[in-house]
């Protein structure tokens, strides 16, 4: 008779039944992460990220001065013994401002991933799993949002909400929900017709339970790569919007805003542009490397081919 499942084989009397020794295979996430930090680029990315997160968390302790305090008479200095990165036009220490600048950049990145990520994934889940009119409606809304030039959308949302760090995060999150939603939806669509889903539904599991318990975990792993890239995009977008004058308001330091003010002083004090620019680039580099490494780590073909 045709062999339809493993149970057929095992139960068939013609074959000897032995239970092979199988080592418990590691959880796929753990395995993927181990692959990530074995990858030198991934390791590099994680180190950079950790450094910057550390700086953000412990800014009050590691920055040499208060970033808002104006040291009168010491404006526009280049790097020296007292101020390692020099000072800005109001006499504020640039090193401290760069360190504290990790906070808005990282918090915006996290908020965007959090808000946008959650919304996008949920929307994509709903669209992909529920199908029908829910899918059609959501997809049309996504298409319309997606067709909006992202930066103009951000501009408009911030104009409506007012400037500020969280408002910037919301603006960027709104801009990324459509693309995240689309990716999530296509992943869900791929999973939806898989055997295990059909099996679960045969057993009587409800839609939501199936979605959350079965489909979501499998769909999420490829999403992680997207989320890492998303963080990079969010950091860049925040800097871009701050550069255009929106975002974190003075006197709070933010890399994008610092780069914007540096434009007026490029000839007098180029250091105002160098510090934040380099750190911004480092953060983005780290995130990109991490995303690359994650992508390689989660790519089943590379994994299976032993590469």
């Amino acid at each position: 008779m045709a062999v339809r499942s493993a149970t057929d084989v095992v139960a068939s009397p013609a074959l000897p039944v032995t239970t092979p020794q199988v080592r418990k295979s590691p959880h796929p996430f753990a395995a993927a992460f181990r692959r990530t930090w074995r990858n030198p680029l991934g390791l590099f990315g994680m180190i950079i990220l950790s450094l910057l997160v550390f700086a953000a968390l412990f800014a009050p302790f590691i920055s040499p001065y208060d970033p808002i305090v104006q040291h009168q008479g010491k404006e526009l200095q280049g790097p020296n013994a007292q101020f390692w990165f020099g000072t800005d036009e109001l006499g504020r220490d640039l090193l401290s401002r760069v360190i504290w600048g990790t906070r808005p950049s990282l918090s915006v990145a996290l908020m965007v991933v959090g808000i946008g990520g959650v919304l996008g994934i949920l929307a994509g889940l709903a669209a992909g799993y529920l199908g029908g009119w829910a899918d059609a409606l959501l997809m049309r809304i996504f298409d319309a949002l997606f067709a909006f030039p992202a930066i103009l959308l951000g501009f408009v949302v911030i104009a409506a909400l007012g400037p500020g760090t969280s408002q910037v995060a919301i603006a960027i999150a709104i801009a990324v929900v459509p693309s995240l939603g689309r990716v999530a939806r296509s992943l869900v669509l791929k999973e939806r017709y898989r055997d295990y889903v059909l099996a679960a539904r045969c057993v009587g599991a409800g839609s939501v339970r199936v979605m959350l318990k079965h489909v979501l975990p499998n769909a999420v792993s490829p999403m992680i790569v997207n989320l890492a890239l998303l963080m990079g995009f969010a950091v860049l977008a925040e800097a871009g919007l701050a550069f255009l004058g929106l975002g974190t308001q003075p006197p709070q330091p933010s890399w994008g805003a610092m780069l914007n003010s540096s434009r007026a002083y490029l000839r007098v004090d180029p250091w105002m542009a160098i510090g934040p620019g380099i750190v911004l680039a480092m953060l983005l580099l780290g995130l990109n490397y991490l995303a690359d490494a994650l992508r390689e780590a989660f790519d089943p073909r590379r994994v299976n081919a032993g590469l």
Partner: protein
Amino acid sequence: MRANRAVRGTQQRPGRPGNGRRQPSGTSGASGTLASTSATVQPAAAQPKTGGSLRFAQTANPVSIDGNSIAGGGNETAWLVFDRLTQYDQNRQPQPMLAESWDIASDFKQFKLNLRKGVQFHSGRELTSDDVKYTVLRLRESTVGSGILAGFSNWFTAIDLPDKSTVVLRTDSPRPTFFDAIELFNIVDKDNVEGPEAKSKIIGTGPFTFVEWQNGDHFTIAKNKNYWQSGRPYLDEIVSYVRNQQTMDLQLESNGMDVVKIPGVDDFVRLKSDPDYQATIHPASGTFFEIGFNTARPPFDDPRVRQAFNYAMDRKRFCDTIMRNTAVPLNLPWSATSPAYDAAKNSVYTYDLDRARALLKEAGAGTIETGILVNGIGAPQVLQFAQIFQDSLAQIGVKLNLQNVEPAIWVDTLINKKPDYTGLWGGSDQIAQLAPSTLFQLSPGWRLDNNHSAYKNEMWTTLVNSALSESDPTKQKDLYTRLNDFILDQSFTVPIATYPYTFLMRANVMGVQYQLHNGGVSFTDTWLA
């Protein structure tokens, strides 16, 4: 071509021909005949050459090219297409423009203007007194301009046109500052303004004709070959660009621009000593930075608190570090050309934190937390001052939060009080170079009705109204002294420093005129060496 003598209270100086001499920035130049109604800053020896195209750049973008619009950015663009009836010289003496001569009644309630004959609009039509009447009446429409000019226009309760080149304006109350008003009246062409092309083409009688406007990028004008000042203008064409500060400075230095208005402060200071460039500050722009308080809300209803804040303003630091000494601290708004200017009173409020603390204590204010509404895009210097101010105030126990909003919101909040703000506001202001009553009439920081600081006071109203109608110079002096003392004492709107209108020009640009309206320049006498 001289003004009439039947005028009491103003003096006419005989004109001196020739160009003015080189002036240090900050003082005014010689008055004179029409050919030199300016403080030029180049040596008089050279002979003007005709021809050439001038490339002018500024950061302000005019939102409207209507000649009667007073929205920003218009001075070196649309206003060059028009003429006004008279034009002030550097000593605030009116010089003939479209009006050749005038008769002013001794009670300042009747003004007779004799128009120049043979002046043509760019369309070929001849200018008549009807056009003057049309313009004055048009200014009353609130949708044109922004109501300020309407205020002036409404002075004139009757406008008679005895013939095609005479206009008689009558007012109810005495208006000794008549010339301040007509300094701003661009005479427009009815056919143009009411015609189909009104928004895309403008026609005036001015030295330059309209060629093209690409909103947000550039505005092009060409020489008016039939200009009534024969031999003028010298230039063939002027293109006014809208550029951001760094780009236009760089373009100036790579010979891509000839004149730049309000360049970056550091570039200005750096090129001052460079012989290839001229770095000038408009001698009488009358522009300044100011901060006001919402006097309707505690604790700012108490003048002692306001004075305390005034003592906490580190003006010197602002002028030194942010403005690199191109700006000068102010306690009173007036520039040197204003009759109310008082050098001594300008340093009453020194930077004195102890005094500030004492005043706060006396007023029983305790710790204060409040906000300041600024428009960082329109007035970035005020935003920077606000950060200095924040720092200073922190030392006397006041927490100042910065509310940096967009121009549209700033305007709406302050004019309509929507949403109501409770603290301070900061911005830039102008027209402090003319008669003080003009400032009190026009400026939203100082006017009687609905000023940004919500300030209402009987004494203030009386003083301002007297200033508007007082014509005797001795009485005026006394009035201004009282006004100045009042302003200093009440501190409801507080000037910080001058807002210098700086210009960077290539060395070969000659004959730029600094006008007495809105810190603008005119290029009628300009030529390229």
